[in-house]
């Protein structure tokens, strides 16, 4: 259709190489056309966390094949692409540079504008592929192995402000560390979730970080929780008792989900927004989504959670944000744009 534009998105900030394609229609809606992801997660497993150099090598090897898969999925050719968006940050420096270098080359060869966009904004924008346009104001809770943040979104291409964030570990990192304590595989989210379903969430009273009356209202802390789990397990082992892994997992997971949802709902109320988007790899966690649904319903807040495949890092989220930025008439990013590992969340597109 005339007026439609195809936007390509490239993501390489951590351990997933993602290429996505979306269609931006004349009325501003954004539709998913393709979403190809190559993950190096298995190569990191024995190290218990993402090894930057391994991730960067994998990005370089995966870039062209992932691009080819995305094009095949959509039935489009590179020459059909009208604009390219790439994750400019935040993320791992060496990993980001692979995607940014490739994106500059694709954009130059195709003669189309390039937008260096914010990875965190992409996690929010991706929900428009599933649930349509966002309201004028909404709150976003991003939870993954790399981020734990509360964002006030006032126009996905216009204004994103950080309301709160973790002061130490990301929620997903806490999952990985607790999984290690319990000899569960990496990444820790899925195995802990599985064990937790068999356990009692009230079995052990693990601490809720930063929930005292004088603590920051919207910030998070998970390093104390992880230490508490380690200590509890150690004490039980010393006493010669068996460790009830399902109960530990359920109680740990309850503490994480409790704090995340309580603070998100509190921020939504304080800021007078009626929509909460939860995105990022941990959004798929069963207890987090159940508790968020319950608490949002009680508070009269509309909850939007993209399907798990879109919540984890992918190129479609970057294409989606690129499409919104393009629709808003943003200037393209310059070709000498650097990758920025510490890109602040309020920089939605590099200018």
């Amino acid at each position, binding site marked *: 259709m005339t007026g439609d534009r195809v936007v390509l998105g490239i993501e390489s900030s951590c351990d997933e190489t993602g290429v996505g394609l979306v269609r931006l229609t004349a009325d501003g809606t954004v539709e998913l056309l393709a979403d190809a992801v190559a993950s190096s997660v298995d190569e990191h497993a024995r190290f218990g966390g993402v090894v930057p150099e391994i991730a960067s090598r994998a990005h370089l090897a995966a870039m062209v094949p992932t691009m080819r898969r995305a094009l095949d999925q959509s039935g489009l050719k590179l020459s059909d692409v009208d604009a390219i968006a790439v994750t400019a940050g935040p993320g791992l420096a060496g990993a980001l540079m692979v995607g940014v270098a*490739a994106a500059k080359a694709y954009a130059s060869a195709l003669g189309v504008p390039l937008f260096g966009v914010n990875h965190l904004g992409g996690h929010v924008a991706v929900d428009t592929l599933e649930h349509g346009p966002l309201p004028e104001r909404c709150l976003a809770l991003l939870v993954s192995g790399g981020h734990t943040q509360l964002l006030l979104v006032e126009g996905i291409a216009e204004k994103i402000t950080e309301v709160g964030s973790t002061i130490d570990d990301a929620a997903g990192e806490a999952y990985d560390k607790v999984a290690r304590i319990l000899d569960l595989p990496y990444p820790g989210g899925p195995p802990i979730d599985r064990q937790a379903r068999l356990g009692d969430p009230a079995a052990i009273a693990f601490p809720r970080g930063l929930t005292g009356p004088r603590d920051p209202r919207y910030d998070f802390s998970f390093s104390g929780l992880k230490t508490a789990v380690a200590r509890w397990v150690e004490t039980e082992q010393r006493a010669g008792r068996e460790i009830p892994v399902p109960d530990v997992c359920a109680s740990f997971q309850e503490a994480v989900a409790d704090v995340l949802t309580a603070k998100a709902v509190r921020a939504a109320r304080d800021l007078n927004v009626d929509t909460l988007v939860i995105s990022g790899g941990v959004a798929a966690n069963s207890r987090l989504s159940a508790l968020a649904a319950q608490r949002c319903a009680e508070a009269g807040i509309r909850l939007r959670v993209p399907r798990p495949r879109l919540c984890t890092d992918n190129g479609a989220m970057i294409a989606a944000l690129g499409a919104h930025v393009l629709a808003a008439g943003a200037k393209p990013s310059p070709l000498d744009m650097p990758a920025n590992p510490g890109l602040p969340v309020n920089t939605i597109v590099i200018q």
Partner: protein
Amino acid sequence: MLVIALDTSTPAVTAGLVALDGGRPRALAERATINPRAHGELLMPHLLDAMAEAGHELADADAIVVGAGPGPFTGLRVGMATAAALGQACGRPVHPVCSLDAIAAEAAVDGPLLVATDARRKEVYWAAYDADRRRIDGPHVQRPADVPTSGFTTAAGTMAELLGLAVAEPRHPTPVGLVAAAREALSGEPAPLVPLYLRRPDAAEPGKRKSVLTRGGK
């Protein structure tokens, strides 16, 4: 034929357009900046500047040659990723060449030659060449003192002076050197686009914890 040449294996960010018609390759335009932190920023602008100066579009090139290292990894990957994406978008073959070969191909001396570049951590990437500039040893990564220099009088490359031999230009791969080194490869199927890392990623496996845990069933 017109060949795009890129290299980011040394602190030089190098891009150029080279003509190859029977004789020696000829640089139509080239850009190089010495800045080990700016590969990601400068490579594509450099290439577009060179193309504009030569009066050509990217799509006019018949092939792409890229230095595959060895070189410090993050910078090296910028050139490789750029070349891979250009090749895919323009539908042109991308030929990797050892970046040390590109330096050797341009060295303005007779006789055998050593080439050494910076591998950081007090080591060098090096390779040895005969008088016809065929690589006879390497590439390796070693401390400069451990590089066997007997039988050689001259070295080129960014770390040439560390080998205690006479130093010859060039210090960095040039577009003409890259195309000269790729000359035979250009008529065949491109080799896989894999960097010459020579080192494994730094990563330590965490120690094993003894399991004394009881787990729920599936």
